Each structure stands twice: as structure tokens, then as C-alpha cells.
């Protein structure tokens, strides 16, 4: 379970997170929606320790983040980055097996390659892709490889940062379905940030809306369309009229 309380983060004079409080129960898929630049990525990065928050607490299963050491803490997480963030200098299978080839739980190269190929198959990629390099892949294939890397070490918690950005609607649908299937079959706790409403509907058990540095609304996915919160209503309808200021 992830419990975030009063999380604050500013960059210079710009206050990005201004007291975010959010709870994600174990095994649940939480999707955080919000406009561009509202701090969704910063929130994920604060949990992972990639960005140091100015205040607030983050508890994972009741314990402060990084209790038991940084490596053990990070080993519980997998993350799919917005642009894939695949390592250009490594082949696809070496990207997927990156964690398996290093650290305290290191496996032999043959075993790690076998697991990588299995994970690639799980995300719909043929074994022949394993020896290609990221630059040789299409955007959709890179997302799949990023997904395979995120799940390779079977983490308890998976973060998805804008998983469908830059993909055509059909490929976005495929990636959404894959994420939903994988999260369900692994029983993982998932946090996804997106402003793609098709992703929200495909992936979420619960939805939270981040706006103005705080969680503006949160609720189960089936209440998203019936809420009378004006911010959520404007966001899901994509209207320029409403409380969320739209620059034109």
C-alpha cells in the first residue's frame, strides 16, 4: 500500500505539489489524471526518490520509503517511462534483463536472456527482436520493450508514466490492454499518470485528479462519469470552458 500525506515540492518560485495526500491500496490500479505541467510526473519521481520532496511523508506498506536500503526499496518497483528510456547502447534483451544482470539478485546471462525473451513474448514481441537495438524499433515496440523491462523482475509496484503518449489510437489501445492484463495477472499495485481518457478507462480501478498542486478528486472508475466535480467534468469532456484555465 502506498500512502502519501501532505507531499510538497517547489521548483524555484513554482509550487508544483502543494500538499498531495493519496492512498493506493495493495493490488489496486490507480490512475492519476491532470493537465500537462500539473506535477503528475514529479509525484511519481518523489515516490521513487528521483526528486527530493520539500515536505510530507511517503509510506510503502506502512514503512518510510527506503527503509531497508535503497536497492531493496527500488527492487520493489518497476517503471515504464514516457519515452521508453531504453538504453541506446544495449540490445533489447539486455535492456529488458538489465536488473537481472546486475545487483544482488544477479542471474547468469543465459538465464537472464531466457527471462527477457519470455517477457518480450508476454508483451507481444517475437524473440527475434531481442538482439535488435532500441533505435531499430518503432515507438510502439519501444513502449512494449519498456513494459517488458518494467515487469522483468516481477515488481510489487509498477509505475506507468504517460504509457500511450505518441502512439496511434490502435497501438495505444493495445498497450492499455497489455497494462491491464499484466497488472491483473501479477497482482501488482499500479500507478499510472496520463491525460489520455482511453487509458484511464482501460487501466484504472480508481482515479485521482491532480490539479493546483493537490488531489482535487478521487474515486472509483465507475463514478468518474457521474461526479459533479467541475474540474473533473471539464477534464473528461475536454472543454475549454470551466474552472481549469485554458490558454488559447
Amino acid at each position, binding site marked *: 500500500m502506498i500512502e502519501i500525506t501532505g507531499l510538497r515540492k517547489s521548483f524555484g518560485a513554482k509550487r508544483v505539489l502543494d500538499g498531495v495526500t493519496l492512498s493506493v491500496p495493495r493490488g489496486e490500479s490507480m490512475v492519476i489524471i491532470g493537465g500537462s505541467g500539473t506535477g503528475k510526473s514529479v509525484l511519481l519521481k518523489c515516490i521513487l526518490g*528521483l526528486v527530493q520532496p520539500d515536505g510530507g511523508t511517503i509510506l510503502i506498506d506502512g514503512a518510510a520509503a527506503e527503509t531497508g536500503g*535503497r536497492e531493496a526499496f527500488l527492487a520493489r518497483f*518497476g*517503471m515504464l517511462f*514516457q519515452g521508453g*528510456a*531504453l*538504453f541506446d547502447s544495449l540490445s533489447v534483451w539486455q535492456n529488458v534483463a538489465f536488473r537481472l544482470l546486475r545487483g544482488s539478485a544477479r542471474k547468469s546471462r543465459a538465464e537472464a536472456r531466457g527471462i527477457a525473451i519470455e517477457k518480450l513474448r508476454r508483451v507481444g514481441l517475437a524473440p527475434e527482436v531481442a538482439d535488435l537495438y532500441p533505435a531499430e524499433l518503432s515507438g510502439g515496440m519501444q513502449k512494449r520493450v519498456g513494459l517488458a523491462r518494467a515487469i522483468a523482475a516481477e515488481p510489487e509496484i509498477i509505475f506507468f508514466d504517460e504509457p500511450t503518449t505518441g502512439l496511434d489510437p490502435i497501438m495505444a489501445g493495445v498497450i492499455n490492454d497489455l497494462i491491464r492484463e499484466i497488472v491483473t495477472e501479477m497482482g501488482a499495485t499500479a500507478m499510472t499518470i496520463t491525460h489520455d481518457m482511453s487509458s484511464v478507462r482501460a487501466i484504472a480501478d480508481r482515479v485521482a485528479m491532480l490539479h493546483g498542486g493537490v488531489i482535487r478528486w478521487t474515486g472509483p472508475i465507475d463514478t468518474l462519469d457521474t461526479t459533479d466535480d467541475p474540474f473533473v467534468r471539464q477534464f473528461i469532456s475536454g472543454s475549454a470552458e470551466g474552472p481549469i484555465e485554458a490558454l488559447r
Partner: protein
Amino acid sequence: MTALLAPLAALGRIVFDALAAAGRIAFFATEAVSHIFRPPWYPREFLAALMQIGWFSLPVVGMTALFTGAALALQIYAGGARFSAESVVPSIVAIGMVRELGPVLGGLMVAARVASSIAAEIGTMKVTEQIDALVTLSTHPMKYLTAPRILAATLAVPVLVAVGDSIGIFGGYLVGTGRLGFNPATYLKNTRDFLELWDVGSGLVKGAAFGFIVALMGCYYGMTSGRGAQGVGAATKAAVVAASVLILAANYLLTEVFFSA
């Protein structure tokens, strides 16, 4: 009065910024060096860096040394002729190459080739979130990216300098025997007789220092790169400029330490 103080204020800001940057680089260097000695180590990354920095820099360092040695022989011959001291060509070419020109020009060529590529590679990794991805995969970027490159450059550049010294002396030998009429055996004997071990050793120590500077600047500016293509471009330029200036400054300091009476 305010108009009078404005240039002073600007100067003060520049000095403070420079001191702050020096402090940040010193902290970065300390952390990077500490990771060289603490596990986990990444031998594959180290070997890849060794190939990239050492082996692939050989052609450019070799060509630079060859032409420098050749030009040096011509210059010393022409200069020596003014006071009938043409015979010093072999010894001055050798001493000049191994003490100064080999390490300095080798260091500058490696700075141009390696500091730029390290800064561009790490900078691109930073802006495409690959550094963040490394962290989420339980891998410390300083251990995985910085430590192997700094160690590889510190070890590889002295070897490059040694090879460059030999090629430079050979360049002088080619011109000396082919164009200036030196007897080949006499040229080699003069080279050998006047060269002391510390001449070579001091150049190699300089090479190690320059290699450290090159990789440190590449890694530092890559890791602190700004966003987008412009940020990576600026980081690359800053890495090459800083590495080149620091090599020349370090060369003066080391020469003072090694050779001042």
C-alpha cells in the same frame, strides 16, 4: 554611483559563479573517485570505456604526434642553424615530445574527441530519462556511468601519450634523416642518450592527470546538462572548453612541480 557599481557587481557575479562551479565540480570529482573504490563495479562498462577512450583515440593521437614531431624537427633545425647547433634536433625533438607536446597535444585531442562524446552521451541519457531509468533499476549512475569512464581515461591516456611520444619521435626521425641529412644511427643514438627516464615518466603522469580531467569534465557536464538539444549542445561545448583549459592549466602546474629548480 549605481552605474559605477554595475560593472563591479557583474564582475562579482562572474567570480561567485566561477567559484560555485569549481565547488560543484570538486564535490562531483570526490564522489566520482569514491565510487571507483566502492563496489559494485561494472567491468563491462570499464572495458567499453577503455576501448572508446583508448583504442579509438589512437589514430587521432598518432597522426597529431607524427606531424608535430616532424614539424618540431624542422623548427629546431631552422632555429638551431642560427647558432650552429643543428645537431640538437634529435634530443630536443625527443625531450619536447615526451615532456610537453606528447601529453599536452594528446590530452587536447582526447579532450576534443572524448569529453565531447561523454558529455553528449550522458547529457542525452539525462534528457531522455535514461539516467532516471538507471536509478529505478537499482543502478547508481555515478557507479555505472562516471566511475568506469574516469578510471578508463586515467589509465588509457598515459598509454596514448606513450604511443604518441614514440610516433612523434619517429616523425622527427623521418624528417631528420629524410630531409635534414642526419645519419639514422646517429639520430637514434642522440635521441637515446639525451632522454632521461623522468622525462618520459613526467609526461605519463601528466597524461594520467589529463585523462582524469577529460573524463571528469565530460561526465560532469553530461550529468548537469540542461533540457533538450540545446542543453546537450551547451553541455558538450562546456565540457570541451573546460577540459582544454584545465589541461593547459594543469600542465603548467605539473611542470612547475616536476621541473622547477
